[in-house]
């Protein structure tokens, strides 16, 4: 496994930069972070970001965290090495994450920090420079960006190109003013303060890579999978998928609709799929809750459809801007009656592209709903990813019946009982294969039928389809294994966006002498029984890590494999840090 190597590789550069402040006072705090991210990535470094938006509608404390390295990054990191804090509250709220001896870049015209520990203080009069030297006070954040660039020796021309991309369409004057701020910030650090860089981000020559957010990766994956119908309803943090699809799908001859609510959104996707198109909707918890009845319809009527649930902290409206992995139970069990469905989860930004494809493949293969469980953390954060290999990827289309001879009509067995449970589908428009898709229990021809025999046979069929999907996964990796091979003292199991963080922690733990293995599960239903059984049998104790209160995945595994896992849970609205997982491993191993 090549990845094991990467985990062990020593990093020459590994730096975490945090940007903090009140967006009402300093507009563009997120832009500061994003530009730094893009610039760093342009010169060839790996990036991995994490951000929290304020709860206020406008204004409020925001946080943008960028980790960068010359090696592959698996997590947002732990402590921050450089903190850019535009206001005092921004500093005080985040002081605790600044590493001992770290660098604090602050707006010296706004406040004087009173740190409780030893930091390197880099005071730059950002407001003053922007107002007095450039007469553009709005761009004080750009002074901060320049200061940071100087400290990491980043080529300012790369930043200039970012600024041009963003503002050139508006006006070149704005470009010039913004860049002037950047230059003045950099100069102030170099000349006035006479500081030399703490690292030098020399360009690394390598093939260009993408900088994507999780939601962008899901959207691109959907397009690659052949999604040609999308319907949604705005909701944080899923709206950017709706917006992406509204913008791009028409270019691919598809249709994207903003519907009146989530129920209508899923209903229209089901309709589009009945008409033969690959269809998807994207929502977050409250929307998924509303879709439950229609999920059951897709199961019963056997209609392929992908539902992306970008989880946020619940229950109810909860904390819309915070992350959580607490919709697993709803994804698995949301539906009255026995309503089996496929559930998959992307593990990283790069993986989100392939997971979207997997979701479509499984929905089309099983002719039923597939829920894709991402989360707010993955949705918003950016990471460098290799150009996805859209050619090499396998695309599955639903099994189609041959068009029949119109003059020899026979009833079309849309719900034919087969070994695999999969029955050939006919697309409206085809001749001779008329059928009625229905949410009533039905015989093979779709006629309502409430006999014990038919209900029993059809219940089996609906579950069997999922088993067939597992049996036919053909080398598609439903579980990724990391860490110790063979017998291990501890086996960590996780799902969703935690993969990278846990890989990092597990690598560290093994480096410290613990014997820890890690299984990351990509398909949550049907569970990859064989792989997990094998994993469980070779570890002394299982720990299940997830961002929710109840230990939802732990409970699922306990029931399925009759094990008593140690839960490692977190309910703070933020992702795990590698340190937290490492601490968990140490506790469990102790």
């Amino acid at each position: 496994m090549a990845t094991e190597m990467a985990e062990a590789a020593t990093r020459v550069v590994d730096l975490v930069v945090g940007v903090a402040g009140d967006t009402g006072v300093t507009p563009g705090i997120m832009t500061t972070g994003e530009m730094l991210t893009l610039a760093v990535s342009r010169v060839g470094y790996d990036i991995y970001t994490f951000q929290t938006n304020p709860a206020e509608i406008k204004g409020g404390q925001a946080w943008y965290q960028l980790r960068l390295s010359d090696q592959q990054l698996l997590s947002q990191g732990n402590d921050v090495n450089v903190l850019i804090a535009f206001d005092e509250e921004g500093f005080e709220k985040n002081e605790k994450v600044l590493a001992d001896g770290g660098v604090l870049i602050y707006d010296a015209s706004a406040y004087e920090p009173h740190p409780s520990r030893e930091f390197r203080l880099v005071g730059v009069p950002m407001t003053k420079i922007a107002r007095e030297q450039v007469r553009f006070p709005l761009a004080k954040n750009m002074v901060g960006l320049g200061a940071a660039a100087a400290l990491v020796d980043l080529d300012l021309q790369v930043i200039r190109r970012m600024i041009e991309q963003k503002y050139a369409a508006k006006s070149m004057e704005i470009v010039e003013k913004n860049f002037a701020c950047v230059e003045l910030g950099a100069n102030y650090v170099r000349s006035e303060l006479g500081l030399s860089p703490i690292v030098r981000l020399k360009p690394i020559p390598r093939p260009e890579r993408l900088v994507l957010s999780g939601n962008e990766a899901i959207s691109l994956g959907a397009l690659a999978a052949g999604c040609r119908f999308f319907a949604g309803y705005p909701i944080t943090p899923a709206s950017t998928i709706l917006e992406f699809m509204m913008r791009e799908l028409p270019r691919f001859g598809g249709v994207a609709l903003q519907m009146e609510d989530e129920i209508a959104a899923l209903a229209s996707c089901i309709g589009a799929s009945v008409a033969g198109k690959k269809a998807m909707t994207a929502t977050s918890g409250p929307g998924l809750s509303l879709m439950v009845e229609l999920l059951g319809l897709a199961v019963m009527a056997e209609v392929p459809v992908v539902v992306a649930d970008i989880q946020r902290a619940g229950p109810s409206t909860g904390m819309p801007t915070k992350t959580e992995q607490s919709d697993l139970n709803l994804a698995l069990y949301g539906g009255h009656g026995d309503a089996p469905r496929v559930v998959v989860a992307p593990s990283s930004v790069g993986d989100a592209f392939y997971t979207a494809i997997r979701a479509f493949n499984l929905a089309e293969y099983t002719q039923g709903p597939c829920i894709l469980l991402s989360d707010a953390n993955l949705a918003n954060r950016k990471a460098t990813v290799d150009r996805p290999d859209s050619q090499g990827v396998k695309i599955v289309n639903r099994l189609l019946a041959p068009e029949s001879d119109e003059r020899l009509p026979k009833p079309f067995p849309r719900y034919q009982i087969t070994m695999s449970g999969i029955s050939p589908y006919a697309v409206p428009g085809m001749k001779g294969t008329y059928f009625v898709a229905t949410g009533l229990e039905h015989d093979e021809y779709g006629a309502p039928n409430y006999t014990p025999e038919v209900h029993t046979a059809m219940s089996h069929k609906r579950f069997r389809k999922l088993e067939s999907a597992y049996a036919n996964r053909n080398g598609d990796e439903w579980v990724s294994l990391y860490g110790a091979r063979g017998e291990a003292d501890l086996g960590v199991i996780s799902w969703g966006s935690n993969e990278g963080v846990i890989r990092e922690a597990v690598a560290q733990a093994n480096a410290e002498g613990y014997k820890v293995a890690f299984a990351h599960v990509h398909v949550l239903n049907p569970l990859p029984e064989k792989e997990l059984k094998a994993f469980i049998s070779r570890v002394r104790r299982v720990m299940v890590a997830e961002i929710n209160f109840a230990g939802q995945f732990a409970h699922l595994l306990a029931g399925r494999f009759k094990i008593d896992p140690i839960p490692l849970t977190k309910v703070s609205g933020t992702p795990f840090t590698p340190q937290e997982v490492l601490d968990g491993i140490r506790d469990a191993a102790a």
Partner: protein
Amino acid sequence: MTTTVTTEKTTGQPEERFDFKGMIEPVWCPGCGDFALLNAIRSALRQMPEVERQNTIVISGIGCSGRVAAYLGVYGFHGVHGRALPTALGVKEANPSLNVLVMGGDGDGFSIGGGHIPHAARRNPNMTYIVFDNEIYGLTKGQVSPTSPKGLAGKSTPEWPALEEPLNPLAMLIAYNVSFVARVYAGSPKTTTQIVKEAIAHPGFAVVQAMSPCTTFYNTYKLWAKQVRTLPEDYDPTDRMAAFARALDTETMWLGIFYREERPTYEEMIAQQAARLRGDEELSDDERLRRLIDSFV
């Protein structure tokens, strides 16, 4: 429930056309108005040579009337209660060449599903929605519906007659600016066939309120026979104010086309916008995707 097969004739002359009968027999009560509506719709379809069996799909909700999806011998989707309209919208926009018919009851359409109508109206998809209105919940055995008259004692609650004013579906549809609004009555099958044909032919969103007595739970044959009247000859269905006034006149059960207006369909607008977005350059989907991906470098 037995599955019987309707043998199909070859297409060709109208009289040789497919009879639009499904594989299964209706399960409705004797005398139910839905039979007459079903027949009138069948006649309409048979009389429209442009309607092809394989390109027609009926999307229906849940209710006695919702069973109709299986009785026309075309493609059908008998979905869940109240969601036929957004489901049908998905079908239509996914494949605009399909002839999409939506059917269901007054409870299905005006109660649980009522919120979807104005949003369909805003888009004006070229599809036809026929609401089988018996002013009662048939399938669930006689509870009052949103069109039940005030004071109606639902079968099961004789001591608690409805305190609610009935909805005025036609007034609502006109306020929503549905581009074709009509009412028909099961007891007038010829007009029904005629108006259903016009509704299907209308290029845009057509909604037909189809009055259909429920012989079992609210038998309105006698009552309605006295109330129905055809809209006058000189009635102008392009006058929205006049249509609203007519809709407010609930003493008479006016039959006919209350309102019609031609405006671009949603499919047309989408196609136009898509063409603009795609630009002139002929690109394969793969190539488009590659370029899109490249924009994230």
